[in-house]
């Protein structure tokens, strides 16, 4: 199996984004390197492992300091090395990137995703620091440093009510003018953002659909433009795509999340809040329980069955399965109360919408041709 280990090295984040799903973001506790070593050693000890990717995710991982990253990379080289080599990946708000960090990311071949929500008036409507100050300039400076050093990665933009209040042309131009490949998420009521914040609702569907349609037209009119979500659907419609139905992969059950407190759980990282509440029985201490042994325990097996059933329901009932691949378990849980379910708001607002838009635009051209 390809294993993705997601480190949540500290809950703390220096930003207070209005839609964030990550819990406990003013808690400054930090992960113990021994916990990471235990996970890596356990991972490589099992014959099922093919490749091990390592991702730093929430809160703001760069708050750990560069020495933490150097130590983990060195540990990875010792424990994992070439036998199971995967990628080093970081998702960050970008505000702490300087020359030293950019050189490090380039040297260690990191892939870095930076969260930025487009033009400053949109970005600053939702991505402020704890003092309520703008983070736009620092984020953009960080991106420019990564580009200048040739670090692989792209931008991640959250689309909210504030975003669609402005023309899609503005958002497209922001990234296109700067040569930034990007992806987007629709702000959703999940995790710590379960009350909604600026999340889009079913009432926004018509406006959002018009917005995404225009965005797709702009993407389609530019040979070199890259928007992950549109390119991905294109690949799933026409490209070489692995269509095997690995339900562990489709259900995010090959992702191991490791928290600052030394506990871990298998599943979609956005289930973090649930892992400390309704799914508390999925968490385990890596110092006491093997990451593989826990997959034989009844709480995990029960969760695995429900997750697989949820993916199967999508496959058996939805015309969009090929382009979506089974929905997002975290959205299913937070919206429907169980991962053994199908459609959720993001399916309706985005996933089905952009697939339908792409099909309708192809059909329209075909009729004209």
């Amino acid at each position: 199996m390809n294993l993705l280990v997601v480190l949540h090295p500290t809950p703390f984040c220096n930003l207070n984004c209005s839609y964030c799903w990550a819990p406990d973001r003013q808690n400054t506790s930090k992960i113990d390197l021994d916990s990471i070593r235990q996970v890596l050693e356990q991972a490589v000890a099992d014959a099922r492992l093919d490749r091990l990717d390592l991702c730093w995710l929430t809160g703001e991982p760069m708050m750990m300091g560069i020495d933490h990253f150097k130590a983990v990379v060195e540990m990875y080289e010792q424990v994992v090395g070439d036998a199971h080599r995967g990628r080093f990946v970081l998702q960050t708000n970008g505000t702490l990137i300087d020359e030293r960090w950019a050189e490090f990311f380039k040297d260690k071949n990191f892939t870095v995703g930076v969260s930025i929500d487009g033009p400053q008036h949109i970005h600053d409507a939702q991505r402020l620091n704890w003092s309520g100050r703008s983070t736009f300039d620092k984020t953009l400076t960080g991106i420019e440093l990564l580009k200048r050093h040739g670090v692989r990665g792209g931008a991640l933009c959250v689309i909210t009510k504030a975003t669609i209040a402005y023309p899609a042309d503005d958002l497209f131009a922001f990234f296109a003018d700067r040569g930034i490949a990007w992806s987007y998420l629709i702000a959703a009521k999940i995790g710590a953002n379960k009350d909604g914040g600026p999340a889009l609702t079913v009432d926004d569907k018509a406006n959002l659909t018009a917005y995404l349609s225009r965005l797709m037209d702009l993407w389609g009119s530019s040979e070199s433009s890259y928007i992950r979500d549109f390119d991905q659907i294109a690949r799933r419609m026409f490209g070489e795509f692995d269509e095997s139905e690995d339900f562990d992969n489709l259900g995010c059950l090959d992702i191991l999340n490791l928290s600052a407190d030394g506990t871990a759980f298998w599943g979609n990282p956005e289930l973090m809040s649930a892992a400390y509440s309704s799914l508390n029985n999925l968490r385990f201490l890596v110092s006491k329980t093997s990451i593989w042994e826990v997959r034989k325990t009844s709480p995990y097996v029960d969760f695995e069955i429900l997750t697989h059933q949820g993916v199967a329901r999508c496959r058996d009932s939805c015309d969009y399965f090929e382009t979506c691949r089974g929905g997002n378990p975290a959205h299913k849980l937070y919206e429907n109360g169980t991962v053994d379910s199908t459609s959720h708001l993001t399916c309706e607002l985005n996933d089905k919408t952009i697939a339908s838009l792409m099909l309708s635009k192809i059909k329209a051209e075909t009729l004209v041709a």
Partner: protein
Amino acid sequence: MSVAEQARVVSGEVPKARLGSFTAKVKASSKKFPTARAFNNWHAANDVGVGSDCPWGTTN
């Protein structure tokens, strides 16, 4: 018929030379940055940000 199947059927009926520019873009995009295997089916773990073969600057 699924949405993806419809797209393949519709576009497949059109000779390549007569493909519209949008369809041509879609088909070209489908060949960019091929991944040997889908990354974990976690939306943030695909292509940009996590697990990317796509470099900064692709849009230029």
